[in-house]
């Protein structure tokens, strides 16, 4: 539904962006709002005219292939990089204007952004002190991420997973309502990935706004409510997860039958649309589900050799979406989801 009138400037639908203008869902408030964000590094445009809103109290997945500009965008939200043009605000304010930044936003861009010679405790303490956060809270977040026992150890010797936990402990110090994680599961073992996933769910369940980037669609599948997809620095999609799934699976039914002409006419009569498949006798049907197509065939005495529900997997849809950043196709036929193949 391009061109839908939505508040807060989500209605940008230039080009072919069918999935733009959908996030966040009606009635919710944008916690993070970017307008026309642009950042160049020399000749390279890292982020180009990015406009999006991140819903309050939801998990928003920030997707894009490596080098799409996710980190740069997050850095601009946090004021680490200044945009060449455009603005971004959190709760209506520039990040640098937040009274107590850590009490409003907890952000982890890079878990390696620590002085390895400093103990985990002192690392968190020096962060906490800037925002008037006490030592008790430092102990608390160490407990929360399970680093209490190594709190006095220098973080230099930490494993990747421990480093990630330390970084996340830092984001929780101020008990913030907004959390931002850049590729939090990158390089983690399955246990660490599970831990992060559960943590994000728990944070979201507490009503916090979570903005998390990834270059892997499946990472978002079970955690994100909203999606912002970028490629080569440009916005490709901004929608709810449900909308993305709906558009991605763009369900069609594939049939093979020797009586394709007869079936085609019956389908059209029933309100479906039919396109010829790759081989003679194969039809692709939209607008009707597999059960209905099967019934129509049975009623018409049409023998079916194949009846398959075809839908793009999210991963495929995501890759299709980002593979070519200039042209955007919402629904792509892809891997079969379920197949009932008749005798040949």
């Amino acid at each position: 539904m391009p061109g839908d009138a939505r508040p807060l400037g989500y209605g940008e639908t230039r080009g072919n962006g069918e999935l733009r203008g959908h996030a966040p869902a009606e009635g919710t408030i944008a916690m993070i709002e970017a307008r026309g964000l642009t950042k160049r590094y020399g000749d390279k445009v890292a982020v180009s005219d990015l406009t999006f809103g991140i819903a309050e109290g939801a998990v928003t997945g920030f997707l894009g292939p490596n080098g799409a500009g996710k980190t740069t965008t997050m850095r601009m939200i946090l004021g680490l990089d200044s945009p060449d043009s455009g603005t971004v605000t959190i709760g209506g304010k520039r990040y640098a204007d937040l009274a107590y930044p850590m009490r409003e936003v907890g952000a982890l861009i890079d878990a390696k952004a620590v002085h390895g010679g400093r103990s985990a405790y002192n690392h968190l303490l020096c962060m906490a002190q800037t925002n008037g956060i006490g030592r008790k809270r430092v102990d608390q977040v160490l407990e929360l991420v399970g680093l209490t026992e190594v709190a006095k150890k220098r973080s230099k010797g930490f494993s990747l997973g421990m480093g990630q936990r330390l970084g996340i402990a830092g984001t929780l110090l101020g008990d913030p309502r907004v959390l931002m994680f850049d590729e939090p599961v990158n390089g983690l073992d399955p246990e660490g990935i599970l831990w992060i996933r559960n943590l994000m769910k728990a944070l979201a369940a507490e009503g916090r706004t979570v903005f998390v980037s990834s270059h892997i669609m499946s990472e978002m599948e079970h955690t994100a409510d909203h999606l912002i997809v970028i490629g080569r620095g440009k916005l490709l999609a901004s929608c709810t997860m449900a909308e993305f799934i709906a558009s991605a699976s763009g369900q069609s039914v594939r049939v093979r039958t020797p009586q394709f002409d007869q079936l085609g006419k019956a389908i059209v009569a029933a309100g479906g649309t039919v396109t010829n498949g790759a081989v003679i006798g194969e039809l692709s049907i939209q607008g009707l589900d597999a059960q209905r197509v099967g019934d129509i065939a049975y009623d018409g005495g049409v023998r079916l050799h194949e009846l398959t529900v075809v839908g793009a997997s999210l991963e495929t849809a995501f890759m299709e979406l980002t593979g070519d950043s200039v042209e955007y196709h919402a629904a792509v036929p892809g891997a079969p989801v379920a197949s009932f193949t008749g005798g040949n």
Partner: protein
Amino acid sequence: MAVTTAPAPAGLPAVSGRAGIGGVLRSEFTKIRSVRSTYWTLVALVVTGIGIGALVTGLVGAHWNTMSASNQATFDPTSTSLAGIGFLGQLIIVVLGAMVITSEYSTGMIRTSLIVMPRRPVVYAAKALVFTGVAFVVSLVTCFVVFFLGQALLSGTHHAASLSTPFALRAIVGVAVYVTLCGLLGFTLGSILRQTAGAITAVIGVLFVLPIIVHFLPTSVENGMQRWLPSSAGSAISTTVGSQGAHLFGGWGEIFVLCAYVIVLLGIGSFMFKTRDA
């Protein structure tokens, strides 16, 4: 998995206004006291300052009777005792001054620092202030210790100075100020160059190489330039006997010259710290 945060976590006192320099000063002090490089450099500063001061005054004390009358007449017991902290100390403190900021870039900590406190001039000022405080206190204590130790070692010469000796106190405090300012040169150049080796090399160039280059210039040019060298403050402020240099502004005058350089560099460094992407 039970990651739940209590509704009102302990250790999160209510706050008003906005996070300012007070918390950042505490944070920067935590940072400087929680890494080993701080202790190594400060121990090096104290040990070389006291060790070399004691060594030189001890040797003079032991060989006093073999010195010529003119050498004895121009002997400066105060500046001799402060030679170690003055000459080597200025180099060592530069390392600490530079590393206070460059280590944040080399480790990536700077990103964390600026996320938790995005008001960059506050971070820059807090870093400079905490370093200045630590460097000055340690230098001043070292200067006093080595002064008294040196004078004790010179007691046999009957030329030992005391705090009431003209210019002695000025030299003690002044050398501590000079060493601190040298450290700030390291800090500012570290913040501009963002790397330790570059910053240290640059300060060595300014403090040690520049005077040598100036020395090779025609005497009239050299005389005109000497007072503007940042390194002239060290010798000018520590001298208590005889001329403090005919072509210099005098002890505090030269300190002001060095101070002016540091202030200009702090301005440049602070501006670049605020405007550059981290």
